[in-house]
């Protein structure tokens, strides 16, 4: 049997076993060059319980199976780097062991076995940035992203509230007719989840032993650098003076005159009250609204 016939036979067998789960790409001469298959753990067809997956891409060089296929693992879901690296090791071993014989099905099998063994996401929850411990209640979206149920519920409840608050501000003719649509925090794919069920879950375990925040000497050093830069830029007039900008803008509508810059030598402070009232909170917003009014007035003249 020629090489080509042996490859043909292997691929026909793969298609017979895996059916739609495998795709074979042929080059312009009609020779097979790439085999692709997305692999899930064996969960007796309970798709809901498949928490990890990965796509195997095997390039078949001329001379396969007498030389090794070039294997790539793509779009891993729920798998961290070390799991992927271990899989690459196992694939390499299998390929050299099976040199001269069909190996694709063997590769699919070892990947599936490994996924079945560790059918628990080894990545982090994108919301709290902590991992999944045994006993944590977690959710897999249709787009294969993972969250602690507790964290996802939090996201869904908050985004729905924000949506409602925005809608309430709009005049009737601008309101959305579609209603709220939840989306995945990672890829923004639309998702539909039972919020009530999710929100009954306990917080992730790793979150419970809270650690205190400590100021290290590195941090002190950086803080010092920040202060120096602020003082230097301040001395060159490079720091935005909110107070003065506001006065300037108010004067545009009255006299178009220049305002002497206010003398503000303090680094805008970190205290919460300061932030809320003068720099970042509602105070700034209302200034912004006035700012827009001024612009409108002055350009209207």
């Amino acid at each position, binding site marked *: 049997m020629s090489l080509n016939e042996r490859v043909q036979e292997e691929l026909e067998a793969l298609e017979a076993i895996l059916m739609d789960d495998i795709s074979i790409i042929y080059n312009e001469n009609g020779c097979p060059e790439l085999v692709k298959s997305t692999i899930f753990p064996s969960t007796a067809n309970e798709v809901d319980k498949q928490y990890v997956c990965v796509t195997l891409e095997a390039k078949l060089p001329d001379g396969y199976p007498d030389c090794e296929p070039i294997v790539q693992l793509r779009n891993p879901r729920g798998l961290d780097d070390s799991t992927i690296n271990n899989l690459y090791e196992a694939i390499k071993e299998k390929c050299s062991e099976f040199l001269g014989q069909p190996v694709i099905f063997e590769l699919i099998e070892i990947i599936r076995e490994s996924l079945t063994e560790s059918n628990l996401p080894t990545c982090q929850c*994108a*919301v*709290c*940035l*902590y991992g999944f411990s045994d006993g944590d209640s977690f959710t897999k979206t249709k787009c294969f992203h993972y969250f602690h149920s507790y*964290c996802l519920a*939090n*996201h869904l409840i*908050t*985004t729905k509230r*924000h949506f409602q608050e*925005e809608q309430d501000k709009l005049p009737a003719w601008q309101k959305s007719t579609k209603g709220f649509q939840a989306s995945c*925090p*990672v890829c*923004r794919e639309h998702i539909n989840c039972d919020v009530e069920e999710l929100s009954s879950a306990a917080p992730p375990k*790793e*979150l419970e032993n*809270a*650690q*205190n*925040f400590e*100021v*290290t000497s*590195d*941090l002190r050093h*950086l*803080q010092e650098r*920040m202060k*120096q*830069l*602020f003082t*230097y*830029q301040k001395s*060159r*007039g*490079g*720091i*935005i003076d*909110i107070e003065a*900008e*506001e006065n300037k*803008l108010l004067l545009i509508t009255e006299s178009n005159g220049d305002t002497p810059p206010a003398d503000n030598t303090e680094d*805008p402070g*970190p*205290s*919460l009250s300061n*932030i809320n009232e003068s*720099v*970042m*909170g509602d105070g*700034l917003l209302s*200034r*912004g609204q006035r*700012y827009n009014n001024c*612009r409108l007035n002055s350009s209207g003249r």
Partner: protein
Amino acid sequence: MAALPRRIIKETQRLMQEPVPGISAVPDDSNARYFHVIVTGPEDSPFEGGLFKLELFLPEDYPMSAPKVRFITKIYHPNIDRLGRICLDILKDKWSPALQIRTVLLSIQALLSAPNPDDPLANDVAELWKVNESEAIRNAKEWTRRYAMGN
């Protein structure tokens, strides 16, 4: 104030251990939700060579709500107004809890490389950017040189 959420502690530690090139963010001494930030002007942009100070505040329900970020150093940019406020979708309706302090600051740095005068916050700057781009770029370079240098 309630204990600092672990996510904020984790982000802070990672910012110290694996800093993002061209960006530094340091929590304040007295309020760990308030960050002092320096973003360096990207190469091949009119802001190259500048060190821009920003302030970043994580609200009570962070990461469910976006951080509040503002430029402190003066900057000539169509999407940043005279008060240092930034027009960027991920800080508003496109916020997602999968974003982090580092990704937000990277987006702001990217905004410096790609000004968008069609979605302006500073009208006069955006206007000039559209009718006479080379003069606008000259202004941006001049402001960077005058206001955003380090000592």
